[in-house]
């Protein structure tokens, strides 16, 4: 393989008019142009029917369905605590959830737990959590900041196991929870990562 003339590279990059190339380079330019035209023919195949059949078969459990399922099941809970300044709040929440009805603990053994999300996003208009547990659907888990101090929080019941998630700030900025501690590649290349949450029974 030999280096090709930079003028030819420029013409192929559209940075130079090919008519200005010397004759010996025009031949090379023509060869690559013919090659790309041949390759540009779209194949006479289609997968549209196959894909749409799969799309129509796909079912997504609704948020309401998941909440109904949660309400119908006995459970133990896990409270996920992250920033130190939420300890008191989370402990209070855990006390309420773990000890209903005068301090009797909920029977262990259920396959769900409570995950609490807290993030510091001063000035944000909205913050929500999307993740593998809600099919990355927007709008299913908005966080709240009642006192407008930039600390957004919310909680959700999740099945035990690993869940990937992200914060979506102001409806457009996706942020991996900086306090998650664990991350996984998002599977779409480009080296981006989702935060990882582990819910234990």
């Amino acid at each position, binding site marked *: 393989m*030999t280096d090709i003339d930079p003028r030819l590279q420029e013409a192929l990059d559209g940075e130079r008019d090919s008519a200005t190339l010397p004759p010996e380079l025009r031949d090379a330019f023509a060869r690559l142009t013919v090659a790309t035209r041949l390759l540009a023919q*779209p194949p006479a195949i289609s997968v549209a029917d196959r894909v*749409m059949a799969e799309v129509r078969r*796909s079912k997504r459990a609704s948020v309401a369905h998941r909440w109904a399922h949660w309400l119908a099941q006995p459970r133990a809970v896990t409270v996920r605590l992250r920033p130190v300044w939420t300890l008191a709040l989370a402990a209070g929440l855990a006390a309420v959830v773990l000890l209903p009805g005068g301090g009797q603990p909920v029977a262990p053994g259920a396959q769900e737990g409570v995950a609490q999300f807290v993030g510091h996003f001063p000035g944000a208009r909205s913050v929500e959590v999307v993740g593998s547990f809600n099919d990355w659907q927007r709008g299913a888990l908005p966080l709240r900041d009642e006192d407008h101090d930039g600390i957004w929080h919310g909680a959700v019941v999740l099945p035990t196991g690993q869940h990937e998630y992200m914060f979506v700030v102001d409806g457009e900025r996706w942020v991996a929870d900086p306090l998650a501690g664990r991350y996984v590649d998002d599977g779409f290349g480009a080296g981006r990562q989702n935060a990882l949450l582990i819910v234990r029974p």
Partner: protein
Amino acid sequence: MSDALSDPQVVAQVLGGDREAFGIIIRRYEPGLLRFATRMLGSHDAAADAVAESLVRAYRHLAQCRDPVRLKSWLYRITGNRCRSHIGRRHTSDISLEDAPPVADPADTWAVLERSEQLVLVERALAALPEEKREAFVLKHVEGMSYEEMSAVTGARIPTLKMRVHRAREALLEALKELV
């Protein structure tokens, strides 16, 4: 349902529960994705599998498309990853062209036959390129993407992509001396 809707509008429609709207996305991007996958894998069957898997994956994770304005790049990225996965599963180190060469139809003109032979020559030359250079060349010259778009698809930096395209051109010119 209108194909005049923008990509973000179609994405919002699908996420709002209108599954049939995903057909707009398929109509819009299927030809290019199939062409890209065919050039990457050298086989229509493998390309069809890769693109079908990619589109189903895209539907299931559509809410993860963080910037629907760049839906096209996102779909090409998923398809590129799926092609790499197909290539990785092969036992041989290089891609193979279609199992059987095209059969000449008596009605074909000389020009059509010549074009068909030229295509085989070009496909072989492309198949001989290393995977990253092949991908860069196809995205740039066959799919007509800018280097910025290519960077969004591959995750590679623009100078790296330019170098891959340049090297691919050099290798193809060497291999296509008989062309034209």
